[in-house]
């Protein structure tokens, strides 16, 4: 879909820079300055206390019902916005429909004062630009300018569809003020609430009953642009109008809405005749059906009935509560081994004892789902290398590993060196004194107290010469059979396509650090194969997905890789084989990342060949050297920035900027965009590569420990510029969570 009305002459390099800067400011700058400051709702029980739940007097950590969402998926009335923000970190999905307008919006409250939305819009019977049913993608961004005070309303600034076709383009400033009212008609935890909002809007929101005009808003012209670029020449231009609304929430379930809309729906009612706009007034009633789901019914514009479903997921309030089996207690040595003077060290010389200790430890770890890689024992020190295939939080694995050592080692062992290992590669060493474990288990602030005495250090590349390997570890063979679902989005003839079937995966590890892995896929049903063919003028490095979907049985990947530690603070990987459905070849990566550092630097080089469409063993006549220099920066509080500079699959050269926010429980959300030397015209629809990604950990859905998660990457348009090869086993994500910042983020779980 065309997305914007950029005149061609604007896509010079200066404009590209400006563009990049604008997006970068929206994505990163603001996060770095303010976003790290406050965390609303986290000072529970410390001043900002919440009222108790209904029917209870107990302190409660359950948040109050969140702001309701409008037809655009933003906090607001019905079709108009308000100045409210969602609880920090909320992922909201809104489905809405009226008058042949169906919208699905994903909104993420990235910081307490900024949110972003991505919307897919379907208009039936519009007959616009040659499409009977017209689909449109658009992005919004909203900023809170100041918070509500006792007399002062909250004020927000919003840019709607700021980079798209401009079809939904609007800018606004809106103020909202809440008033307490008596509760009515049901239970209200914090009483009733009336919210009054009023604002001034441009673009769509200035199209009805405008009261003035600011400059010239360029007209919409689908022929001159491929869209995707911030349309700043339109922002706050043209006619402006006033809008306003009331929302009364008399109890925790019910909401009544009334608003005055300044959107004239010119295109829908005049260019096409989707519906009749007879009145500027909209009415609605909403009901909180489930804690996360709100449903609404509305009467809009004097002629139409509308419906919404608003689903708000808060990473801090997952639907399932994680409960893990209680850990072993740390029993003080005095209780079972007498006073320290009597602790014997002669056991170190008995090979039989050492073997016995290793077996005991391995068994003890197994109960907690951990795997012993090696154990190296001295009279007073134990270095244990272990794998964590179970817990999202590495700190939880660490605590259990330490408890297992405390439960099995002879009394003379005082220093525990715990080395987390990922596929044979040592990630970090955490040094704990056994007497600290004994002294602090029941300390009033046990986790903070343990963190204060824990040491973090780089792990040696290899275990020492006397280290005993875990029993029966190598060679190691694992396999699995599972179902898969592979979605594909935004084909204008069918916006959602799906393949499903069965995956057979197998992994063989002949020795630590080596991995031979493969995945065979059998499609059972799917319609991705009926999708669009590529119209890209670049090499078809990613747009041949339809051709790749023709075969039912495919070899998804088959590769051999080795990862190791070439030196202090250095991590390395070499891989060869079929990496993904479209590419195979050779890949090498090296990463520098000290355990205590916020900064990591990486280099990756790949020589890849495009695979045959049937995804067996053959290759096509397209090969490329692609690689990037990467910088990873932990901004604190879960925000992480990444910049990759290098050469992409189509041979284009440029950089990718991304920012992700990860919560301690594994939820994450992020966005990225790439600028390369491919012109907007050559890139095609969307002008440059960009997208959103998020991940929901399985623990939040199952309530059981797991390291798996459901990830999703959404690109509004998949083109060939700015594309990278997917190589399994990239280093940074393995390393990050085992380093100091990663462990500290989840440290509360160390005693759990």
């Amino acid at each position: 879909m065309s997305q914007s009305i950029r005149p061609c002459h604007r896509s010079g390099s200066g404009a590209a820079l400006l563009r990049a800067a604008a997006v970068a400011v929206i994505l990163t700058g603001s996060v770095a300055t303010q976003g790290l400051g406050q965390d609303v709702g986290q000072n529970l029980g410390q001043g900002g206390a919440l009222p108790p739940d209904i029917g209870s007097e107990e302190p409660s950590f359950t948040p109050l019902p969140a702001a309701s969402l409008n037809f655009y998926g933003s906090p607001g009335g019905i079709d108009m916005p308000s100045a409210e923000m969602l609880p920090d970190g909320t992922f909201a999905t809104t489905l809405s429909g009226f008058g042949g307008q169906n919208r699905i919006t994903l909104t993420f409250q990235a910081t307490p004062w900024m949110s972003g939305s991505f919307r897919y819009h379907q208009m039936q019977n519009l007959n616009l630009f040659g499409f009977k049913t017209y689909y449109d993608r658009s992005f919004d961004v909203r900023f809170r300018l100041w918070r509500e005070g006792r007399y002062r309303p909250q004020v927000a600034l919003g840019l709607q569809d700021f980079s798209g076709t401009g079809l939904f383009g609007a800018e606004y400033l809106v103020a909202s003020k809440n008033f307490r009212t008596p509760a009515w008609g049901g239970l209200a935890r914090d009483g009733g609430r009336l919210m009054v909002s009023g604002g001034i809007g441009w673009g769509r929101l200035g199209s009805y009953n405008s009261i003035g005009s600011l400059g010239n808003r360029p007209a919409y012209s689908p022929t001159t642009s491929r869209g995707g670029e911030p349309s700043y020449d339109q922002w706050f231009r043209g006619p402006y109008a006033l809008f306003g609304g009331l929302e009364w929430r008399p109890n925790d379930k019910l909401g009544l809405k009334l608003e005055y809309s300044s959107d004239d729906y010119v295109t829908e009612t005049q260019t096409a005749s989707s519906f009749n706009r007879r009145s500027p007034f909209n009415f609605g009633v909403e009901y909180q059906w489930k804690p996360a789901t709100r449903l609404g019914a509305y009467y809009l514009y004097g002629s139409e009935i509308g419906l919404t479903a608003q689903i708000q997921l808060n990473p801090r309030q997952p639907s399932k509560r994680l409960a893990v089996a209680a850990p072993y207690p740390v029993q003080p040595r005095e209780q079972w081994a007498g006073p320290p003077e009597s602790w014997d060290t002669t056991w170190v010389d008995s090979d039989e004892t050492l073997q016995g200790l290793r077996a005991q430890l391995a068994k003890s770890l197994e109960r907690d789902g951990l795997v012993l890689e090696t154990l190296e024992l001295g009279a007073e020190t134990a270095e244990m290398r272990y794998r964590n295939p179970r817990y999202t939080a590495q700190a939880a694995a660490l605590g259990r590993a330490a408890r297992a050592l405390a439960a099995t080692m002879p009394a003379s062992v005082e220093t525990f060196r715990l080395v987390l290992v990922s596929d044979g590669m040592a990630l970090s060493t955490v040094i704990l004194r056994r007497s600290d474990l004994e002294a602090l288990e029941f300390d009033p602030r046990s986790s903070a107290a343990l963190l204060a005495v824990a040491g973090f250090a780089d792990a040696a590349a290899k275990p020492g010469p006397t280290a005993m390997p875990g029993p029966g570890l190598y060679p190691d063979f694992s396999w699995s059979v599972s179902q898969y679902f592979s979605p594909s989005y935004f084909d204008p003839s069918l916006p959602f396509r799906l393949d499903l079937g069965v995956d057979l995966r197998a992994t063989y590890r002949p020795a630590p650090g080596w991995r031979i892995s493969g995945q065979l896929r059998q499609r059972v049903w799917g319609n991705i194969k009926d999708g669009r063919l590529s119209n890209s003028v670049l090499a078809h490095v990613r747009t041949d997905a339809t051709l790749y979907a023709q075969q039912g049985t495919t070899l998804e990947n088959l590769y051999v890789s080795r990862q190791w530690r070439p030196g202090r603070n250095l991590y390395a990987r070499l891989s060869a084989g079929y990496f993904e459905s479209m590419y195979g070849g050779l890949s090498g990566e090296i990463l520098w990342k000290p355990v205590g550092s916020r900064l990591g630097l990486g280099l990756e080089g790949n020589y890849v060949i495009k695979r045959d469409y049937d995804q067996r063993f053959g290759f096509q006549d397209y090969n490329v050297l692609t690689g990037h220099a990467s910088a990873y920066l932990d901004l604190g509080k879960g925000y992480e920035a990444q910049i990759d500079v290098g050469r992409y699959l189509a041979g284009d050269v440029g950089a990718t900027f991304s920012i992700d926010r990860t919560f301690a429980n594994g939820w994450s959300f992020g966005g990225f965009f790439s600028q390369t030397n491919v012109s907007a015209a050559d890139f095609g629809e969307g002008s440059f590569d960009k997208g959103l990604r998020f991940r929901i950990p399985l623990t939040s859905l199952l309530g059981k420990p797991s390291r798996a998660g459901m990830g999703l990457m959404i690109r509004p348009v998949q083109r060939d510029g700015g594309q990278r090869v997917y190589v399994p086993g990239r280093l940074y994500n393995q390393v990050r969570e085992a380093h100091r910042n990663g462990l500290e983020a989840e440290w509360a779980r160390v005693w759990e």
Partner: protein
Amino acid sequence: MGEGLGMSRNRLLRQLAGLGAVALLALSGCSRGTEEAPMQLQLLNAARGSAGQIARKARGTAAPARPPLTRAALDTVPVPVLEVTVERRGDWAFLFRTLERTDSSPGRIEQWNTEDSNVTLSLRNGVLIATRGLGGDLLSSAVQVEDGRPGPASGGEQLQMIRNLDYRETALTLSCELVDLGPETIEIVEHRHATRHLQQRCEGGGGRVVNDYWSDPRAGVIWKSRQWAGPHLGYLSLRRLVK
């Protein structure tokens, strides 16, 4: 035309067979080895688990009822037993003592486990200081106890570190006053105990909490208590069935 029809029927049959294969797979997806199972498989296993629960519910064979307790039966138990009920969920269990120790703070620590060791409670002089395995646990606490005296020794501040659902901990400070409600005789499964009823009335975190203890200072034991374990768990009722 006929051929076309035949082909589409073939396709339909193949698709049906495929769907059958998926259904079969839903019952048979599996993994072996030290590698973590793929995400899809974990999800499937969970769905299987909850399908089983629903089936059991439908058959009316949900949770086992609490067995009737008699002193005669309890007299045969040679070790101390603590009965705990999580009031909000109606869950209950018998706990066995697995650890007794002291540390640098006053009071004696006891840790009690369920038989499968999946849940533990830690008490300091009978005052709850930690839970594990319940979800949204009480990670650690500061309580006002004195050596050799069961139950809370005085009013003042109580600190609770709560494990939140986002894996972070939140400090909850409660200001408490301690009230001695005088002697009270209570009965626990046919045994009568002469106790003092201590009540701790606390405020903090926007709410109010009342903890009750029926303490027997001569025996050095809290026979019965009702204690608040944080906003995620609510009140726990504890009864010492076997000393």
